[in-house]
């Protein structure tokens, strides 16, 4: 069983089909690249996986559990009975969970963390605070913990900081620990976003154009880091336009064009695929 399975995934925005019956798997422990010309629907797929959008059709399974499905029609009969989720009957609650769509934070909790194509850091928070946000869902202290600070809360705070520092070091940002995120150079902001996602302890890390805007040296470092991440047991799914990166680190590649999957295979296979060549050349002609 694959770690992540997309089945016939479709997303329409009004009349526009951004993702069109896409099916592919992400296997545990691999680096999978998702490529395609601008507007092919790559980011939309990421937003579907992370629960920001609900699919129009199709399903997504993560580790065997269904994490996305169309909310179609469900709403009409679901709405009047929303209170069943609080019934103390297990099977009812499970049914309910099947009906409703998961929210992004629940999907993150299940083990999928992401970065954004346009960097979305908490700009006015420090690097440390940014990464600490990633640890949020792994800790529990709430209102009472914050006010009364019992021992468990203090241990938790210490854990949050140490965990955040670990990923800051991993991404080589320790010199910037107390710097505001927005004051970091661009390349470091990209790294910080990855650190933040890693702090969420994901099994699957999805990166949306991590090398965009990086210079040559930074790109090489990034490729190294991504390999290291994979070696530490985290599966990586990435979108990237930089073919050097894609061909360099991806074990498998899925190619999208106009929302449809047009090819899937090893970098060599994909590079030779006439449909892929045409999609990319076609884009240039325009």
């Amino acid at each position, binding site marked *: 069983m694959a770690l992540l399975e997309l089945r016939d995934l479709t997303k329409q925005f009004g009349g526009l089909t951004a993702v069109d019956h896409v099916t592919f798997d992400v296997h545990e422990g691999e680096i999978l690249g998702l490529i395609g010309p601008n507007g092919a629907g790559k980011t939309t797929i990421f937003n579907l996986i992370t629960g920001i959008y609900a699919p129009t059709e199709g399903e997504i399974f993560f580790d065997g559990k269904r994490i996305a499905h169309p909310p179609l029609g469900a709403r009409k009969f679901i709405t009047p009975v929303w209170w069943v989720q609080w019934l103390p009957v297990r099977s009812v609650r499970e049914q309910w969970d099947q009906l409703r769509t998961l929210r992004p934070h629940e999907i993150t909790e299940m083990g999928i963390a992401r970065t954004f194509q346009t960097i979305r850091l908490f700009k006015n928070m420090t690097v440390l605070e940014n990464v600490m*946000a990633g640890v949020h869902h792994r800790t529990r202290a709430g209102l009472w913990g914050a006010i009364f600070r019992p021992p468990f809360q203090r241990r938790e705070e210490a854990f949050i900081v140490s965990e955040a520092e670990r990923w800051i070091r991993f991404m080589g940002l320790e010199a910037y620990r107390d710097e505001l995120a927005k004051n970091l150079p661009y390349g470091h902001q990209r790294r910080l976003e990855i650190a933040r996602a890693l702090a969420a302890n994901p099994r699957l890390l999805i990166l949306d154009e991590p090398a965009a805007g990086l210079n040559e040296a930074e790109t090489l470092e990034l490729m190294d880091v991504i390999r290291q991440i994979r070696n530490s047991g985290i599966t990586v799914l990435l979108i990237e336009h930089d073919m050097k990166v894609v061909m360099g680190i991806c074990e498998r590649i899925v190619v999208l064009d106009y929302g449809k999957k047009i090819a899937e295979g090893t970098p060599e296979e994909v590079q030779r695929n006439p449909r892929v060549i045409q999609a990319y050349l076609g884009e240039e002609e325009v």
Partner: protein
Amino acid sequence: MKSLQARLGRIPPLWWQVGLLALAVLLPLPMSDYYRSVLWRTALYAILGLSLNIIVGYAGLFQLGHAAFYALGAYTSALLNLYLDVPLILTWPASVLVAAFFGYLISRPIIHLRGDYLCVVTIAFGEVVRLALVNNIFGITGGANGLSGIDRPVLFGLVLRTPLQHYYLVLFFLVLTLFAVRRLENSRLGRAWVCIREDETAAEAMGIDTVRAKLLAFVVGSAWAGLAGALYVARVPVVSPDLARFIESVVMFCIVVLGGTGSIPGVFVGTLGMVTLPELLRFLQTWRDAWMGVAMVVMMIARPEGLWPSRRVRMEIRGEEEEEAGFPTGVEEDPPDPSSDNSGEPDFSGEVYQLYDEETYLITLLEEGPRGLPSEGDPSGKDAV
């Protein structure tokens, strides 16, 4: 103001905490009862301001009906005392709970609305509460005249009567509030609130249950306003629907905004400006309100971040300007200047789509509700389950 802030910042915190507390305790002693009442009012509104600051300042939710919860707390205390003869201090927890309950009730269905919509709903709720009280709901609230004849609170056999005693009572709760709020600020929950204010989509994607965190802010803030209402009743044994007037909510909102959203010292500055000063200038009568208005407008133009802003909010509003003013960056080894780092600026044309994404996500949140069920033309999102 900035140099003052800087200078104050250098004094060890314990010193000025103890100093301020001592000042607050000793200040009313040489005063007449009138000024003691003014101090009482100031402390009470500081509590209200701090409670609203949790909602507006930390979680970034526009709440313009805060006075409704204040009134709910006051009426709860008064009703329990009048009809069930509950000693006043025992009604205080009930005031907190009732305000919290209503806070939950009204915020649950609207929590995912965007700022302006939320604002309208809270205003409406404030009016609903006021009108319910005026119309003598259930025949127990005494209509427009309100309720009177409420007992005085008794603490350890001592009946609290004088303005001084009441000032100390409120001061006690103010210190308690301050303690709690400062700890909240610097906690897992407090950080989650800041994340949400900074970028809600990213916060949600990092595993923060944004709906829950915002609800919590709303409920806690409302509950604490309920306590302030109860403290009001303790001193003024008459309650009337005027407590829930819209202008009261506006004053509370201005307290938070005037001093600097999200800033604790800012709440005090705001209280002095919105409550204490107008009280002391009572003799100017009609001119007072006009001046308040002018002052607000001037301030919003000249100093939008408030008089004593929290560092973060100042940066959010002033943005780059502030960096030139020289915040220590704290990094010795001279990182490349981000603003001149245009070489690394991405020029991927896909950016347009991404911006599109971000825009629509807000709308997604608004229309589809927290569970992501799509709406079919129902902007209220009330069936978002």
